[in-house]
């Protein structure tokens, strides 16, 4: 089972392949290059412009998780751009992160008053990030929810005008994006964008009516100007002090969000639920004895995928004999989370 968040967006974009009429003569047409030709009424005349979206890419995000010292978890990503991509990938944004590890305190941009404080804020946002050469990583508040973190990496073509390799070109991949966190992984969305040219744009103020049908369509196109892929991201905070039962319940709660995303079969989720409950009960009553129950859950995952113990999506393979009841990345994440609890309770290796 392989489900991508981009399905929704794909459907959305597919609908623009046909002509949409709004004001008489207004339309948005996607041409063979994937560009949008926008014909609009500016209040005085019919005009046309072109919008080149940043979605002409074929990204794959490969998540890798590793438990390091003092229970710190490293999150690493490899980004692949398909051979048929028309644009190199130049920006990756992963929002909805519960927390990331910072070795130095965060200086929020809201506190900036001058150039020096701006530099401090900028550096404190760069510091936690791991990025490949020539890429700029920044950890900023998630604009959709300021209590969460958005990690992003961008490749500045203007900063590196003489590079032959721009971003992640089609048919290639790039390793080395990442950050660390004490929070356990869940599944979130990575938004990826391709490199777009400088565009002339509207020669006026664009469509004249804010309630025009094409304006709302344009808003949809502009606000979805990325390709989304699933990624393992910090999503589950660890109780302090550590409590295996409470941690399991948080993992279970996150797992339930996968049902709607079709990352797990409901029947399999229900099967795991009973194990979650038993394991939490045993941890509460008998401490480390709960590890046995976790072992049974891990076995259910291992029945479907091999290589889960490596913590790297790249190494995980579906076992052909068994139908998958859980998405590959979800299996990897769940395996990691359960193993983490087991280790904190003295089990595993």
């Amino acid at each position: 089972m392989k489900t991508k968040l981009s399905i929704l967006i794909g459907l959305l974009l597919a609908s623009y392949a046909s002509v949409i009429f709004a004001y008489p003569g207004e339309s948005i047409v996607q041409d063979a290059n994937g560009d949008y030709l926008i014909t609009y009424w500016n209040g005085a005349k019919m005009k046309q412009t072109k919008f080149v979206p940043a979605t002409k890419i074929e990204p794959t995000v490969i998540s890798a998780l590793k438990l390091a010292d003092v229970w710190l978890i490293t999150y690493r990503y490899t980004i692949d751009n398909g051979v048929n991509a028309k644009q190199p990938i130049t920006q990756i944004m992963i929002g909805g992160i519960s927390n990331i590890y910072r070795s130095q305190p965060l200086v929020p941009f809201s506190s900036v008053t001058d150039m020096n404080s701006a530099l401090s804020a900028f550096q404190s946002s760069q510091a936690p990030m791991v990025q490949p050469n020539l890429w700029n990583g920044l950890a900023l508040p998630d604009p959709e929810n300021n209590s969460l973190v958005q990690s992003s990496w961008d490749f500045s073509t203007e900063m590196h005008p003489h590079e032959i390799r721009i971003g992640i070109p089609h048919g290639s991949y790039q390793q080395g994006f990442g950050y660390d966190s004490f929070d356990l992984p869940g599944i979130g969305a990575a938004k990826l964008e391709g490199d777009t040219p400088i565009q002339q744009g509207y020669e006026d103020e664009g469509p004249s009516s804010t309630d025009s049908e094409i304006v709302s369509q344009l808003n949809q196109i502009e606000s979805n100007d990325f390709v989304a892929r699933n990624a393992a991201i910090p999503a589950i905070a660890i109780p302090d002090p550590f409590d295996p039962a409470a941690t399991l319940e948080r993992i279970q709660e996150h797992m339930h969000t996968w049902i709607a995303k079709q990352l797990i079969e409901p029947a399999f989720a229900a099967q795991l639920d009973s194990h979650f409950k038993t394991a939490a009960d045993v941890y509460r009553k008998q401490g480390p004895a709960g590890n046995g129950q976790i072992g049974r859950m891990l076995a259910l995952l291992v029945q479907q995928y091999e290589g889960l113990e490596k913590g790297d999506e790249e190494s995980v393979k579906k076992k052909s004999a068994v139908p998958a009841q859980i998405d590959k990345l979800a299996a990897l994440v769940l395996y990691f989370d359960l193993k983490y609890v087991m280790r904190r309770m003295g089990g595993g290796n």
Partner: protein
Amino acid sequence: MDTLTFAASGIRHQASGKNHNRRLNFALHILAIAIPVMATVQPAVADTIAATATYTIYHTSNHETCDNLQGAYYTYSTPADTLASHQASFPRYCHQGGILKWTQVASNFVLTSNTSLTFTVDVARTAYTAAVHDTGIVKTWAVFWTCPSGYTGPDASHMCTLACPPHASGTPCACDAGYVFDAAGTSCVAEQYTVALQNPLADVEPSGTANVYAATSRDVYAQVIDQQTSLPQVGAQVKFSVDVIAGTGGHDHHDALRPKGKLLDCRDNTTEVESTVCITQLDGKATVTFKAPEVSGTHTINAECISPACTNPASGDINVKVDGLESIPISPFYNMQLPNRDTNHPKAHFLMEAPQKKLETIAILYMLKTLYMRKQSAPPDITLNDASLEWGGVLDCFLTCNSDQYPSTPWHKHHIEHRRGSVVDIKANGSTGSIAHEKDFRTAAKKMGIALGVPHGSGSGRHYHLRLNNRGE
């Protein structure tokens, strides 16, 4: 038998001199001003007749001479005068020709109904033992019944009814429409009303953004109070009208075409009109709906009573404005084109707080990333042009942005958005101070969650139209 014929003359009927200036007693009205009381009823006053009459008796007896009548006497009586027999003697006088003339001055008679006065003449000359008696009814008087001043009547029962004062009628008396009893309750005076407009009138947002994020219309009421009673007046007709005050809303220009707010016709609550007549309810309030125009500014709402009239019309101001806009602060991370070239709109750099913070972060991210890169101009190379007017609403710019391709006229939404303090234009025309590294600018904006479309404007007018709330408003 002698026949005596009486012919009356000079009978005067007149109202007696009795005091008719009775003080009308309206005392009850003082206690219950609002409720007309029963008018007093009292008996009518009958005529008092001063019966002065001259009678001539034609003596027709052949065997009597005038002298013979000397010493004769007569009596008279009236039905009401039960004493009946008022005797008097004929004067010892006899007119030649056998005609006796005699004048009787009688007492005043108070008559209580139509009555007659009967004279009986006894001619009983001493010298003649055989008395001659002739009698006859000589006159019937009509009695005139009169009512005191201020009363009407009398009716068939000779009763008078207290007359209603001017501008009143009916039984009991009620003041005519538009009149009320005065404080003494004795007369009807024209009603006095005051009309007052709701105060204060809360702000309302200009209309015109595709999605309504705040109220763009508001109910406004005027209350009509009866000054005499201090009570709310139901059913009064109040005419509302609206006008816009020049020079408000950040527009330092004015003309007759300036869009102004409308009122919903009170008859259908749908049609948009400039004035409408609404009726007060039990609470004395007439309510009209004010609909904001797309252009912000202070509007004056007037309310005047059509019926009944009020002492003075009322008026109040309602601000059509987007609340919470703040002037974009000076920053080391961006420039602002100040003063604005468009002198009609000298202050067009207002934003809401959250979008302003977002803008500043984008500017910081952009500046720090591009600080050490080759630039066409010294940093900062983000120059803010128009954001919103201090009260938001349509930001027209006919002085500076009119072109053949895209004509611009006053009040016309040349800037289609820029109405709610979340949109700002950033110069991207290649000139000094415009964005030197557009891709990095786009990247920074996207990190802040801004969905960037293509730039707006061409040539020297090219700019990024940054929707900091990701919505057209």
